[in-house]
């Protein structure tokens, strides 16, 4: 167990088995008396969330993100491995762990719709062992913080989806837990609401010193919000790094040269340090030469000088050039596709 982490998973494994009686395979049309299906939602996953950190768990649908969150919150018991929250083993100290985590699960109706937001917070506050004046003050402060102060006496069923999601976050925060687990907090929200929720999550972590684990398949959310990112695919943690490191790691050291006409590739292939040249029309008609260079600093420098000189020599007008920004989306696709498998060893904790 690492003391620096407030949430830690040690080689956690979870497999679900389902049995289907009188099963008919839709593809082969073959019938069988029963059919057993095994899905590995987590395969020896290990990572930690430091105090005050936002950790993003990124992965496609069915990758095992929600299962991981549920294992941390004690809703699902792992088959093997250990989960610690604030130094407490989740299996043996589950009720104590629950006082330390606030959870927002994806796609659930956490709040009770006939009650108002204030009544919801009072109800869930009591369920989480908060009471009296402390609870009343905290409920009002939270609604003010999240921007629902004006709607605290309106029935929850009348709130918009984004407002309900905000209320779910308030419910998770009502007992003032040091750890916040947010499963797909912005799914299904419009741009404005999504931005609003992201800002509030940042406020909670930076302003109140809480740690958060956010699962998402929205790259923008992860890139903007998270200090560190773990990429999970088919139950395996295939990458886990600081966000910038992850972006740099998969950066292919490419530069874009914006020129006046579409260049001929063969004219640049022999420049030292240039590994690959791809001409393309950006935004429909702007000719761009994408040049992949060697990662060695000296060779990269030589390649860039060589490119500028060659463009001038061949009579191209160079409008501008810039380093090609790697997006988390590219990293994600890289890691979750076969391309990432070879680099898996280099992207662990």
């Amino acid at each position, binding site marked *: 167990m690492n003391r620096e982490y407030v949430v830690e998973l040690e080689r956690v494994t979870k497999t679900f088995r389902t049995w289907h009686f009188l099963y008919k395979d839709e593809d082969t049309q073959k019938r069988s008396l029963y059919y057993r299906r095994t899905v590995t939602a987590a395969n020896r996953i290990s990572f930690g969330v430091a105090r005050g950190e936002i950790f993003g768990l990124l992965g496609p649908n069915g990758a095992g993100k929600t299962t991981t969150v549920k294992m941390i*919150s004690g809703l699902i018991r792992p088959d093997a491995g250990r989960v610690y929250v604030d130094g407490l083993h989740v299996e043996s100290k589950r009720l104590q762990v629950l006082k330390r985590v606030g959870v927002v699960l994806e796609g659930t109706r956490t709040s009770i719709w*006939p009650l108002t937001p204030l*009544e919801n917070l*009072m*109800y869930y506050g009591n*369920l989480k062992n908060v009471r009296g004046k402390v609870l009343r003050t905290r409920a009002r402060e939270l609604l003010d913080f999240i921007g629902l102060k004006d709607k605290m006496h309106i029935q929850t069923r009348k709130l918009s989806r984004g407002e309900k999601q905000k209320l779910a976050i308030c419910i998770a925060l009502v007992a003032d837990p040091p750890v916040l687990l947010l499963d797909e907090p912005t799914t299904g929200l419009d741009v404005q609401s999504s931005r609003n929720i992201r800002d509030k999550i940042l406020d909670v972590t930076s302003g109140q010193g809480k740690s958060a684990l956010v699962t998402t398949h929205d790259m923008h959310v992860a890139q903007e919000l998270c200090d560190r990112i773990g990429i999970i695919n088919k139950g395996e943690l295939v990458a886990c790094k600081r966000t910038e490191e992850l972006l740099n790691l998969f950066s292919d050291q490419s530069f874009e040269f914006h020129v006046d006409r579409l260049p001929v590739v063969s004219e640049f292939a022999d420049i030292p340090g240039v590994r690959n040249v791809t001409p393309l029309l950006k935004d429909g008609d702007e000719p761009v030469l994408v040049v992949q260079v060697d990662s060695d600093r000296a060779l990269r420098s030589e390649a860039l000088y060589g490119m500028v000189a060659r463009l001038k020599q061949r009579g191209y007008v160079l409008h501008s050039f810039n380093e090609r920004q790697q997006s988390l989306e590219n990293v994600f696709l890289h890691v979750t596709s076969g391309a990432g498998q070879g680099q898996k060893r280099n992207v662990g904790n």
Partner: protein
Amino acid sequence: MSFFLVVKAELVRTFIIMRRYWFRTLTGLVLSYAMLAALIIGFVARQDTIGPSLAQRFTDADKATNWALGFIIGIYAFGVVGMFSQRLQTMAQNGQLEQLCMSPHGLVTNFLAQSVVSAVSSILSSAVLIWLIAKTFGGALHADFTPTVIVLALTFADLIGFGFMVGGLVLLFKQVGQVVVIVRFVLFLLAFSAEKVTQDLPVVIRWIAHALPVTDAAICIKYVLVQGQTMEGTYVSVFTRPSFFLLIINSTVWTLVGISCFRVMEDWSRSKGTLGAY
């Protein structure tokens, strides 16, 4: 202390909803009264075709009250077991079950608190219903506070224990909820005709009926409230009747079995990941 905090939270929630949806609360009460009254009136009006023994029940005010009480106990049993089956399924579907599981009080405490609150609101509305029926058709209930409270508390423990067992099964096998509908109707019928069932049926069925939570509870409640603890004009305390002892055994066994079963199933469902699934 934590249990009472959850009871308070549940009480506030229930009464806010009852007050906010006052029309639904009121129409529920009126409908129950109307249904019961219509049944009684129907039987009375058709005395000539339903046979003298059944018709006799409704010409006698005490018998009508007895019958109405059976109906109410049946409704209560139906509701308690329903809370642990259909309601639990709904909570699993909409995610509230997972929220309750994440309460540091634990799922058993939360459900126990919900049951207490449900019992309180049910007893209050039943009291109003019984009073209305007694006023309309005559007859009166005997108000003997101590035995009534003791018998009601044992009935509550009996039904809650059974409910916990059903709830435990529903946590793991959600489809069990459909089978439970049949059990709920059996309990409902037993509450009506508990005394008759325990006298007339074959031994095996009789013992099964006694093993179910509502039979002896209904016999004892009716004995206290309708007969005023008198047998052929002589006062015989309910505490000396065999049904009372069976009720004590039943409530102890069902509570222990129910809560143990629920805990085991909750643990198992966490392993299988079925808490939030339907």
